[in-house]
């Protein structure tokens, strides 16, 4: 019952935030009052009916939905990774996923015949698999070997990216840097159509595996003793968790720290049970990015990349996490 009301609250909150987000932006013509008039009371006599309708349906709504899905995806991915690696410092950035995608996108910008989103997505997944297989070399894959492999893979792709930035022509360099900062202003219906199916499939897949994640979060031996093979489980959970995050990164660039902040907030509010955490981090992460994105496009006269905001918010949070969770981490 408690979880039911939490779910209800999340849905209502999302709707309110959506409305406010749609009403905020550079065009002063679109106000909350007019949106309600046009879409709820179907008031066709408004003079700017068609214009406002177009702004909302083709510009604002896709952007808000994409922001929501991107925030939700990164949060769910981070939540999942923290559970299966039993490490509260893990996020899509740590296992090499973000830097892999970043390199892929930069490659596509430099060589325009490559499709940007697909390439980012492809290299993001390659990075995850590389991390997975490097961790498996030698002995059994342990938690620390995963993190180390993530650091190695991140470093590798970051250096490839630097090489690319060095040799590419200055005009392309600018768009690479812009993409790296993470932004949502290129969001449109076409992009939304490309990502939503994958994101929803991965989300429901992870929701299905949420109790098994609880078992994994207790420890590998504890999972094995109740009949789950830790390596198989990791693969079954890591692939959708990687897919959902690369899909988000491929459309929005590097939006740092969300995959770390939101899982921690969620765990503080509802505890560590993934059956609640996965859906809740979907809603909280989604709403969080919608709010931050609304800020980034209405606070200043120009639009600041949203990734800058989230990373700034994330830095003090990260310090807090290290300080409070360090006791648990020294055991690795």
């Amino acid at each position, binding site marked *: 019952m408690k979880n039911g009301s939490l779910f209800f609250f999340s849905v209502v909150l999302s709707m309110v935030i959506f409305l406010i987000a749609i009403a905020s932006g550079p065009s002063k013509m679109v106000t909350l009052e007019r949106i309600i008039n046009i879409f709820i009371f179907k008031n066709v006599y408004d003079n700017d009916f068609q214009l406002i309708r177009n702004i909302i349906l083709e510009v604002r709504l896709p952007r808000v939905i994409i922001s929501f899905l991107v925030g939700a995806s990164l949060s769910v991915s981070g939540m999942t990774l923290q559970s299966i690696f039993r*490490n509260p410092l893990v996020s899509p950035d740590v296992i090499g996923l973000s830097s892999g995608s970043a390199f892929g996108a930069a490659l596509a910008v430099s060589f325009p015949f490559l499709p940007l989103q697909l390439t980012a997505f492809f290299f993001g997944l390659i990075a995850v698999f590389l991390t997975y297989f490097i961790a498996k070399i030698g002995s059994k894959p342990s938690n620390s070997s995963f993190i180390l492999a993530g650091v190695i893979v991140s470093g590798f792709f970051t250096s490839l990216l630097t090489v690319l930035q060095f040799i590419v022509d200055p005009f392309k360099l600018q768009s690479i840097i812009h993409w790296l900062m993470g932004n949502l202003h290129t969001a449109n219906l076409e992009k939304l159509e490309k990502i939503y199916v994958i994101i929803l499939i991965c989300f429901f897949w992870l929701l299905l595996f949420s*109790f098994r994640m*609880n078992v994994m979060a207790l420890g590998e031996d504890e999972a094995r*003793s*109740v*009949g789950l093979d830790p390596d198989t489980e990791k693969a079954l959970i890591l692939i959708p968790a990687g897919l959902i995050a690369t899909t988000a990164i491929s459309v929005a660039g590097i939006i740092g720290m969300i995959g770390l902040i939101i899982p921690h907030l969620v765990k503080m509010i509802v*505890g*560590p049970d993934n059956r609640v955490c996965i859906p809740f981090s979907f809603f909280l992460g989604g709403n969080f990015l919608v709010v931050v994105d609304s800020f980034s496009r209405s606070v200043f006269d120009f639009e600041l990349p949203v990734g800058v905001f989230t990373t700034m918010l994330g830095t003090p949070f990260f310090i807090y996490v290290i300080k409070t969770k360090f006791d648990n981490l020294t055991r690795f």
Partner: protein
Amino acid sequence: MISVEKLQFSYGDRLIFNDLNCFFEKGRFIGILGKNGSGKSTLIKIIARFERSYKGEVRFHQKIAESFSMKDFSKLVGYLPQIHYPIYPYKVLDVVLTGRMPYFSFYPTKKDIDISVSALQKLNIEHFKDRRYTELSGGEQKLVLLSRLIAQNPDIIILDEPLTNLDLHNQIHIIKILKDLVKEGKSIITVLHEVSIAYLYCDDLYFLKDGEIIKKEKDDIDIDFLEKIFNVSFKIIFDENKYIVLKV
């Protein structure tokens, strides 16, 4: 029930077992004793399929251990590790509930929750139900893990030093619960350090030394043998029709 044949195992260059053979009977309370490094934990880990890089054969009811699926094996054999490091503050009930994993694919049902609660009741720790597992003491956490094992309901329960970190009351509490489980038809194999407890409560005793396993009847207390195994002196006291073995 369990037979170990021609077992060979080494950690790197260090040979633990060269040619170990033994047989454990069904429905018994079996204690495994020996000095540190004698291979007690290794042996039960091999039996519980946690250590798989060995040569030789382990069979359950004549069937080779490796031929069971993980799910079926976890219904047959349950294992309580010596130490467990929790990371996230799960509720005690949620920890116990993970013991039911062999009986469903994705989500536990109401029945699984009921079984988990009654497993907590069996250990008289039902009041821990909504507390955070990480906030319990080491001994209390062990009681919770034992409840999880009871919820898992395997035929054979293997425990690695279940009494360490426990106060005296809980030591006897756990031993009595294990005794009850044997009465219900379960088989128990446990590594123990306390010789006196082993002689008082176990049905069969196995001693490990230099890669050899020696079975002893519990009524046949051989002081010389014990002193050779442990390098300490022992004394026997006869009280209330029981022989009590004490280290001195």
